[in-house]
């Protein structure tokens, strides 16, 4: 049996990859994928704990997260397409008009 700490370590690595990707990447699509990576990292820790404690709540939460992520992906991709149509770029550093 794989110990809990292994799952958590992997979950942490996934989440950190997501954060770093979010921070350093300029392409919106990549940033978007980084977010998904973070979500999956969290999901992994949920299911790991659920299995470890024999509690179903963690599993159920993962489904919730997946549903929300799917909805978010739909909306997010729509926004990205709209941005691309108006600005003709996917570089977030050039999408910076919303400021004082």
């Amino acid at each position, binding site marked *: 049996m794989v110990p809990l700490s292994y799952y958590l370590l992997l979950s942490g690595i996934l989440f950190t990859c997501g954060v770093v990707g*979010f*921070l*350093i990447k300029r392409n919106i699509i990549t*940033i978007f994928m980084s977010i998904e990576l973070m979500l999956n990292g969290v999901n992994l820790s949920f299911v790991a704990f659920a299995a470890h404690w024999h509690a179903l709540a963690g599993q159920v939460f993962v489904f919730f997260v997946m549903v929300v992520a799917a909805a978010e992906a739909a909306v997010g991709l729509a926004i990205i397409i709209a941005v691309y149509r108006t600005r003709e770029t996917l570089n977030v*550093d050039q*999408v*910076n*008009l919303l*400021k004082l």
Partner: protein
Amino acid sequence: MNPMLNLWLIPILPLAGAAINGFLGKKSSRRAVTTIALVFCGSAFAMALWVAMRFSSLSLPYQEYFAHWIRSGSFTVDFAFYLDQLSLVMLLVVTGVGFLIHIYSVGYMWDDPSYYRFFTYLNLFMFFMLTLVLANNYLVMFIGWEGVGLASYLLIGFWFTKDSAASAGKKAFIVNRVGDFGFMIALFLLIKHFGSLNFSQVFDAVKPLPVESAGTGLLTIVGILLMVGACGKSAQIPLYVWLPDAMEGPTPVSALIHAATMVTAGVYMVSRSHLIFERAPTALTVVAIIGTLTAFFAATIGIAQTDIKKVLAYSTVSQLGYMFMACGVGAFSAGIFHLMTHAFFKGLLFLAAGSVIHAVGGEQDMRKMGGLKSYIPWTFLTMGIATLAIAGIPPLAGFWSKDEILWKAYQVSPVYWAIGVLTAFITSFYMFRLLFMTFFGDYRGAHVDEHGRASHGAHGHGGPHESPWVMLAPLMILALLSLVGGLVGIGNRFEDFLAPAVGSTEGAEVASHATELLLMGISVAAAFAGWILAYVLYCQRPELPQKIAARLGSFYQAVVHKYYVDEIYAAVIVKPLIDGSSRILWQGVDRKIIDAAVNDAGHGAGHVSDEVRHMQSGNLRSYAGWIAAGFAVVIALMLWMGAGR
């Protein structure tokens, strides 16, 4: 059981008159304004007379409750009225003289563009003055006390476009604040120690207390503080400086407020509190000394004044000093007696002076008058009577009251008496000087070509002219009162009448009847001496006064400049106060601390937000970085705190 007298109507009537004239007077005719003012003031007088007629059937003191005011625990103050012998005398003097002066003002103020405003203020004054004399506790009295101060301020500054009038009004108001401060502290002390401000309750509590013999006690302090209040309102040393300046107001105002009624409020208040003063000999001595000094001091200033109203103003200060001298030697009824006769003859003097000023077209300098007796015989006659009365020539009113005061003063200390007689001599001198300079000799003024008062423009050309009858009638009535008003004092009748209200000095007579007659002779001789001296100096040898003045040199200059008291006050009190306020409080505290703190806080917030707003760069990744950093900090904190636990 007393019948209901509805005393509250007496002050309310003039208030109604003031309200009607104040709100509607601007649009109504002069005739309507006159009617309103005279009817409401006159009905207050009629009601006072009616009360006086029923007076003998009342059980005194008569008290009347009107409305709640303050109910705080066991401490209560109500709008309630109090009538005893003392209030009755004041009531009759205030309404009677007030009504006569209202009539006079109709003639005097007729051509003033603010005619309605004048009568509004005058009626308002009557309301407050009647509140003052009818109050049944110190606090309601204080309302009246402050209210007459307000009316006085408004009327002194009646011609407020004139700078001197406006500042004279302010001066009167501010100097009075000093006195009111003392008065209020006295009231607080009364509340603290007796738990009440009701006359009857306070006096009942005071009665069993012993006389405070050594040094100071509560009653002494209260007495002295009350006297500070009286000094302000009644223009005594050291707070008398506002009264001469108050002559900037119209002459009827000087007569009503600054001679006959308001300035005597202090005497009334001290007499009302006689139970307190009688148990505090130190306070009484203070009253007597202040009164005596003021009487003498103001009289000497009066000698050298050339403005006819200023002479009368200093004369008023001096006569008020007499009244306080009387109170100070415990002869409260004599003080009130002099208050009454003074109201008659000084009111008359001011009104006659107003008539003179009116006759010569607004001139107030006596050096530009002279020889007026053939032009304005009626004014001369009435003013002559008033002068005889104030000088103390028997059997006119002033003689009786002044003699009473001097006699009582002699029994306490011959020093008071000596200064009093000397003052009587000076009084007689400067009053006859005024009379001779104004009415005798040759007319020295310019001929009045154009007279300001159109209503009698028909005889407004050429020389001085007599005033209309509406002004002369009050003069004559007051002259009659000045002639016979003193007779009520014969045989101690006035004193016996007032005795239940202000106590009596009867039985304390230490000197014989012969002494009394001798002293009377001396004071009458002093009055005649002043008369003769004035006659010699201002009728027979008119060049002499200037020579004497030149001989006296700097002393004469000091007297002319009123002993430089105004200048001293300006240098010692006013200037440091203004400098302190402007340099330390304004430039220092307000500008550099309060303003600076507020401004710096504002600027600081501006600067900080100017820096912080660059965080909102529009750059998505920098936002994400801040969020991540924030989370990192939160997690670090949680770990650290968890470790600490």
